């Protein structure tokens, strides 16, 4: 007994301070990685936090992050090569954002993601976005206001935006990989843009003015076929995509009033249910969307105190959303022929045998797919007032 305890102690003393021990101040905490394709090599850019600048004490006024760039034939090689430049080893365990350059996205993102899913240290819960019209490196090279760490800014604004705006869509690495590997679903990714002067953008000067010279902003969804970027959706189509794939958390939707003017509906809950089935040997998809919401803003003459008005608004909402959805479906079915909605999976779930037959030429089947959309809207409240104050102003 005691010999064992003794042995254990001796052993641990011998082994102390070895192998995997890394002190916190030996790590280059990387919050964002950008991957571009430059010529035939991967160019990897990492945004590394400078901890002493983030903390209250001891900041010297320089930027809170540093950027390191290295190229290599593979992503892993590039990251390891980075130590030639960086004083500490890149530590990706807290990665928040992966930015993929548009060029690379067009060529195919699969290869560059392989390392990220294999490495033990990475937690695949970071967001993946595509830089639109610009290399990923430039996106990471911008200072931001409020959130002093740009990666955190990107992460938080994507998260908030997804919660409050149906047009944006956050996709983590494991979701992306699931989409890429699935037979019946293609991937989408949110785009990110740089607006303004990128020269000033990289300096601290950028955030010293009220309105920064350069800012980064999310854009619409990028559509993938296999792992290659095919095209970008418009904002409306992005909205339609969210509706179909049950990823609306809350959002607002402007609709037209019965007569003229606009009203805004605040969606507080939205549930969509996609069901696949086979009808006369032909695949079919039913989309059932149940929405609950409030009247958020009324910019027209309607009498909200009347019972029928709410019903009317519900009808209008349903009609307009179905239009948006149909438009989205149309674009994807006819134009891009890529099934980003997971209709294939839906059919697989309901009719595995039939699915196995049509799996091979699903893209064709998809473009001829009949989709039945049903929206059921329920309005509950009208905010803190009933009739609009506009009523009185006009009088």
């Amino acid at each position, binding site marked *: 007994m005691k010999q064992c305890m003794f*042995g254990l102690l001796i052993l641990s003393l011998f082994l102390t301070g070895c*192998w*995997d021990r890394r002190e916190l101040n030996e790590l280059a905490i990387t919050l964002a990685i950008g991957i571009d394709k430059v010529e035939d090599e991967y160019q990897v850019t990492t945004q590394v936090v400078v901890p002493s600048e983030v903390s209250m004490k001891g900041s010297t006024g320089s930027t809170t992050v540093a950027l390191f760039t290295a190229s290599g034939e593979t992503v892993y090689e590039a990251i390891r090569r980075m130590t030639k430049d960086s004083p500490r080893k890149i530590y990706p365990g807290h990665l928040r954002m992966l930015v993929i350059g548009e060029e690379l996205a067009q060529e195919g993102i699969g290869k560059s993601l392989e390392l990220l899913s294999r490495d033990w240290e990475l937690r695949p819960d970071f967001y993946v976005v595509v830089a639109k019209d610009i290399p990923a490196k430039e996106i990471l090279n911008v200072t931001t206001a409020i959130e002093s760490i740009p990666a955190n800014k990107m992460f938080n604004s994507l998260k908030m935006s997804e919660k409050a705006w149906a047009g944006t869509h956050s996709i983590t690495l494991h979701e992306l990989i699931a989409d890429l590997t699935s037979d019946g679903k293609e991937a989408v990714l949110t785009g990110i843009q740089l607006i303004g002067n990128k020269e000033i953008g990289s300096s601290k000067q950028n955030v010293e003015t009220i309105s920064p010279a350069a800012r980064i902003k999310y854009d619409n969804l990028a559509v993938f076929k296999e792992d290659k970027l095919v095209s970008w959706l418009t904002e409306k189509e992005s909205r339609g995509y969210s509706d179909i794939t049950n990823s609306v958390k809350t959002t607002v939707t402007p609709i037209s009033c019965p007569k003229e003017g606009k009203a805004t509906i605040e969606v507080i809950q939205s549930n969509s249910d996609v069901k696949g089935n086979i009808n006369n040997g032909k695949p079919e998809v039913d989309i059932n969307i149940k929405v609950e919401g409030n009247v958020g803003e009324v910019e027209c003459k309607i009498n909200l105190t009347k019972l029928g008005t709410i019903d009317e608004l519900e009808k209008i909402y349903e009609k307009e959303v179905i239009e948006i959805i149909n438009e989205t479906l149309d674009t994807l079915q006819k134009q891009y022929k890529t099934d980003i909605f997971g209709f294939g999976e839906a059919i697989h779930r309901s009719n*595995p045998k039939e699915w196995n037959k049509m799996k091979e030429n699903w893209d064709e089947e998809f473009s001829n797919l009949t989709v039945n959309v049903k929206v059921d809207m329920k309005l509950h409240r009208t905010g803190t007032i009933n009739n609009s104050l506009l009523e009185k102003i006009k009088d």
Partner: protein
Amino acid sequence: MMQNVKINSYQFLILVTLFSIGTSILIVPSVLATAAKQDAWIVAIFGTGIGLLVIWLFCTLAQWFPHLTFIQVTEKILGKWVGKAVSLLFVFMSFIYASSLLFYSGTFLNTHLMPNTPMVALNILMAIIIVMGVRLGLETIARSAEILILFFFVLFLFLVLFISPEVKFENVQPVYEAGTRTIVQSSLSFIEVTSVNAIVLLMIFPAFINKFKQAKKSFLIGNLIGGIVIIILTFLSVSVLGADNTAAEFYPSYELAKRINLGDFIQRIEALMAALWIIALYFKTTLYFYASVLGIAQILNLKDYRPLTIPLGMIVVVLSLVIYPNVVYQQNWNATTGIFFSYSIGLFLPLLLVVVYAIRKKQLKKSPESSSV
């Protein structure tokens, strides 16, 4: 010294549970998902059912000799020399599996927690507590299992609770796509890991348990609980990660822990959850090791098995470093030779014993002392 050790049936239940969970918790979801895709959990249910039959066979064999260990039973039924030879094979199996489990724990830690630490260091550390446990005796192992299973189930409950918001039922649909043939085929390896290998528990059951009737029940219930844990885990892996991803991961259940994110607050706890796997692996390895050490001692008619623990511990560590040159070899071996090896000792040997016993029954009853000792 060996006779006065007795554990109660509740403690045995816990040991059986931990033994059934053991390695399965790490690798089974992946193995099942490879073959049966999203129906992996059905395989687990099916396997648990068949596994119970196997356990029932063990119980049947054990009830004829309620005071003997497996080694002594083989000697009694097959005669001294044949029995010893067969016992040697049995000991060899449990010894090989002890080092194989040591390899698992080392590889698991190397893959997910400490890639730069040499595996030999991890294995030595693990072997130290295994040897310590075996030296302290079965009673101590059983009692510590009683405490550690609390930790285990608390962690497991956390895992299940925290991951449940991530469950997507779409991932397990369509149900029963794999078909009966695939399900039966792939359940073979599941039954091997959770039930067939439980033959080593015949080294403590029924000889060291105080009430046979209850112990028999414990054996079955323990195996069932272990099976249920694996079923839940397989279901969660498939429904959260998706069938493809589950199949691709070496340790899907660990990946599951990585996915935990409850309100951005309870997250990043996978390293803590690793204790779950270490506890389960520890007890399974210890039981294998105990069976082999006790087995050797009984084959050679030694009075005390304790002196053998440390040298055998050394050998186990060395073996754990050489038996699998790499993880791919390990997966291959497990899928082919491993299954045959386990089944021949864990299923055909007891069947053979039952048959021989049936034939020699009268002869054995007449002179109970003739063939043994």
